[in-house]
């Protein structure tokens, strides 16, 4: 079955320190990969996506993600965390082929950045 795993329910990091939010996926082929952020009582805001090309993708608000095909991972990173980065982060994949145009989401990781 196709799935996305975010192994950490919560990640705690001090402001100014680097952060990593992990994501692995189990989808055949070469899917598109996405990260979204959700603030309380809000919808999903797009951060970045990987379709093809360079394994390091740069996105909004200083976030970047590293695609690793052999490990089927797409970890979200930021060199220096801000308190305002505290939110719920979702990794998602879009399988290719078979007429798929839907997103499969992980369960989410809550990021808490402490002053």
């Amino acid at each position: 079955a196709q799935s996305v795993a975010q192994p950490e329910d919560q990640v705690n990091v001090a402001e100014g320190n680097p952060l990593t939010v992990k994501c692995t996926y189990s989808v055949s082929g070469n899917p598109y990969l996405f990260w979204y952020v959700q603030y309380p009582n809000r919808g999903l805001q797009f951060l970045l996506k990987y379709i093809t090309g360079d394994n390091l993708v740069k996105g909004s608000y200083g976030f970047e993600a590293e695609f690793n095909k052999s490990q089927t991972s797409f970890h979200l990173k930021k060199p220096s965390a801000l308190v305002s980065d505290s939110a719920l982060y979702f990794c998602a994949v879009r399988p290719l082929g078979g007429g798929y145009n839907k997103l499969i989401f992980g369960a989410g990781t809550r990021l808490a950045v402490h002053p």
Partner: protein
Amino acid sequence: DAGVTQSPTHLIKTRGQQVTLRCSPKSGHDTVSWYQQALGQGPQFIFQYYEEEERQRGNFPDRFSGHQFPNYSSELNVNALLLGDSALYLCASSLVAGAGYTFGSGTRLTVV
């Protein structure tokens, strides 16, 4: 900015009732997808509409139905509401062959 607009933002329904949620896609987008996000979970795909037809469907019962209009806007209907239908319902618009999805702010449905 003509982003994705969802209405209403919140509503409370009684078990057994029916509800209709509405979505206006981002300008230029032709495809609308609906997702259910239960508390503490990631969004789950309900179905997708393109050219006024349901193109894909997730693992949701027939109580969940939808419609897409000629102007690409969409409705999600849920019949015979259950307590377990309480969730944030998200609409996402895209181009059918595209790789970009724009999400609305969602409708928070509470079933009592």
